């Protein structure tokens, strides 16, 4: 017995993973106010994201917005009845857009800096799922120079080039223990990727507008991520060497179509339908520079499914200075049963929103938005980690923005023919 040498631990690191249905629908304060509708509705320069084709019909302007995401996540483990709340965190995605019509030309230039993907959940370090995840933080910025070409007063096309920057942090506890406590692992890395954004916008008649849009897939490559391990017992230090890793995270492509109808001079309604090609996210693997029995490159399955989203909203121009908005959406989850996990406890979700704009003067207006998201309660057993329980997430997202019109000329709040 004395001579028995210690066998190496064969713990899998594969469950360290990046976020799930991790898209953020907060790309423009006015659009948030009406259920994030914006494909067939030329609201403002945030059309750089929503539909580059619409830029031809937008007054030259600059729009800035910021939101505060305050998610509350609860998990009740099925077998133990133990309830865990994720720690309170606030995330602040932002957007900045501008467009400019080249004089005597059908060309409009635009640029956008926005954050279409991201995720963050932090669990107590002693919670029952800590070997799966204790913390995930995924941040991402798209920078998109854009050109729109106006064919005629009825039709315009737009195209944008997307350069994406991101950062990912993942932490979990390890089931190895010494007198101080458990070991932990942290994966951290910066990523970059490229893509594009195409759109077409139609003025179908004086009341009805429409658009189609395609956002390409962006593969975020992490080239030199760092894997660091803390409080590893000396006997196992060679099994958990601090090392580097590479990985690739696909941000999915998406197609969308939308329409807006101007019922009268004060009242506009809009609808969007999005279809996101989440099936590109089949698995996530980390390729470690040093492989050991604990650091293996096996990918962890995600097997996301393509998902629909349906959005509707209205805007009412109440007075010369005030517009108000409201809307709602239904967002289908890409996460199949058996794959729900704490990195993003996803399910179909329902959002309701409201917002408004107050014109300080002819050039400057302030936008307000408030969005409530209810992720429908979901019970699942993860096939990989066996973590079994019911997840529930509620999110409240207040936001504020400012718009500045470059040319002092405001005829219409929403641009139609």
């Amino acid at each position, binding site marked *: *017995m*004395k*001579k*028995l*040498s*210690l*066998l190496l*631990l*064969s*713990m*899998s690191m594969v*469950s360290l993973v990046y976020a799930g249905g991790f898209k953020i629908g907060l790309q423009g304060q006015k659009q948030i106010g009406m259920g994030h509708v914006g494909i067939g509705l030329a609201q403002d320069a945030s059309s750089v994201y929503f539909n580059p084709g619409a830029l031809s019909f937008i007054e030259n302007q600059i729009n800035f917005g910021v939101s505060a995401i*305050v998610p*509350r*996540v*609860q998990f*009740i*483990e099925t*077998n*133990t*009845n*133990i*309830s865990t*709340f994720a720690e309170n965190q606030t995330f602040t995605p932002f957007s900045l857009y501008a467009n400019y019509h080249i004089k005597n030309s059908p060309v409009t230039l635009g640029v956008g800096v926005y954050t279409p993907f991201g995720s963050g959940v932090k669990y107590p370090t*002693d919670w*029952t*799922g*800590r*070997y*799966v995840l204790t913390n995930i933080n995924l941040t991402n910025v798209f920078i998109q120079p854009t050109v729109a070409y106006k064919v005629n007063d009825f039709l315009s096309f737009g195209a944008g080039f997307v350069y994406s920057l991101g950062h990912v942090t993942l932490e*979990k506890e390890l*089931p*190895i*223990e*010494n*007198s*101080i406590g458990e070991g932990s692992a942290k994966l951290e890395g910066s990523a970059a990727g490229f893509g594009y954004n195409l759109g077409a916008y139609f003025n179908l008649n004086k009341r009805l507008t429409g658009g189609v849009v395609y956002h390409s897939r962006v593969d975020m490559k992490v080239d030199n991520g760092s894997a660091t391990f803390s409080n590893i*017992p*000396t*006997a196992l230090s060679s099994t958990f060497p601090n090392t580097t890793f590479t990985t690739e995270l696909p941000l999915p492509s998406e197609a969308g179509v939308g329409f807006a109808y101007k019922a009268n001079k004060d009242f506009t309604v809009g609808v969007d339908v999005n279809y996101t090609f989440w099936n590109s996210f089949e698995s996530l693997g980390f390729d470690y520079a040093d492989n050991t029995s604990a650091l293996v490159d096996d990918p962890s399955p995600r097997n996301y499914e393509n998902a629909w989203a349906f959005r509707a909203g209205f805007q*009412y121009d*109440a007075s010369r200075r005030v517009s*108000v908005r*409201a809307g709602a959406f239904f967002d289908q989850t890409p996460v199949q049963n058996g794959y729900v996990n704490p990195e993003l406890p996803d399910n179909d979700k329902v959002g*309701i929103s*409201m917002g408004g704009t107050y014109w300080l003067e002819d050039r400057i207006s302030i936008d307000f938005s*408030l969005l*409530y998201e209810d992720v429908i*309660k979901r019970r699942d057993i993860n096939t*990989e*980690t*066996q*973590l079994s329980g*019911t997840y*529930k*997430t*509620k*999110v*409240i997202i*207040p936001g504020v923005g400012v718009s500045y019109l470059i040319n002092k000329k405001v005829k219409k709040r929403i641009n139609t023919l």
Partner: protein
Amino acid sequence: MKKLIYISCLGMALLAFSCKPNLEGTAATAGDADLTSFVAIGNSLTSGYADGALIYSGQQNSFPVMMAGQFAKAGGGAFKVPYLLNSGNGMGLSSAGIIPRRVLGYTTNCLGVTSLGPVLASGPATTPTNVSAGGPYNLIGVPGASSFHVAIGAYSSATQGNPYLSRFVETPGVSSMLSEALRAKPSFYLLWLGNNDILGFATNGGVGAISPNFPNPLGGDLIDPAMVQGALNAVMDSMANRGAKGVVANIVDITSIPFFTTIPYNPINLRQGQADTLNAQYAQLGITNVTWKAGANPMVIEDTTVAHPTFKIRHATAQDYMVLTLPMDSVSCAGWGVLPNKALQDQYVLDAEEVAIVRSYTDQYNIAIEALASSYGVAYADMNKYMKSFKSGLVYNGSELNAQFVSGGAFSLDGIHPNPRGYALVANEFIRVINAQYNATIPSVDVTSYDGIIFPN
């Protein structure tokens, strides 16, 4: 319109304040079971014995204590444990008397190789004190107890009996495990006895007697299935007479536990020259059934059925199990298992024939236990099947647990008893079968909240 706006503003504000999810779990209920007075009767497994000793922290992490904690959420009452509160490193059973528990530590072997493995904790063992004044106790887990000890009063004798038992019974030498259990007025019981009826024989390499009339299980005797059946029946009959229901568990196949599966049968690595030398030596003695080759070779073990007049030895096979107490230093440096006159003695090997006997006895015990559970209408915990899932490996909330010694994370450093995390899985399996039998909804324990193996920093 303005009114609508005000109302929706108010609505959103309300949502903002009600933003915290409020999921509720399933309510804990006892169903048809009466958990007001729970008594657990068993051997070392039931006592919380781990790392080769019984110690206060181990008792706190025993599966009956975990279960009682969950029962309390469904109407369960107090659960008294005869805790070993004295200082010391635990109270371990050994032929050399009471020894401390094992911890992971570094040792250097005869070849000068230092490695991490189980070592005896430094410092004295725990000297038990008598706690009978605090009785009756709900946890009657007695390390070393075989099934037939359960109703024997002499087994609690302070001088001749079991020191784990004598320290908490009402009248040493008179009170039995069963009488102590009944004194606690059980409404619900757990019975898991019979492991030692096989284990003594198996851990001693099958040197003991098979089905003797007056067995000494710790001395290595194998207990007759009829005797096990009779002992368990006596307990269950007494419980049924009280109207108590409960759960009875079966016996674990010894090849599921690391004590028998850790040391390989073929650890002898040779170069061609070494093999040639050994082959010449064996040939000189007229031993024809042993040959050595370059690479991994099986050890040689004693086998009385071999025809050779002097060297009744043969190579071990994958069907022969080496016990964890085999001194590997002697294999590495003293020629054990290699030289013709150093074949492994019977006590270190549970050979294929003995394994077959042990398995046959395990099956017979388990058939009897299942029949008893059925006839008394109590829950039946198939721990044999459950512990086999340890062997194949299981995943609990993202951590992998298996029956590998030390690294598997479920067994303690003695290779026989689970560690607290392994005991938590056992507790949950008992709770699962109790819930199924009695339509109860007793919640499981959080396995991750219990320690696994503690490494040196």
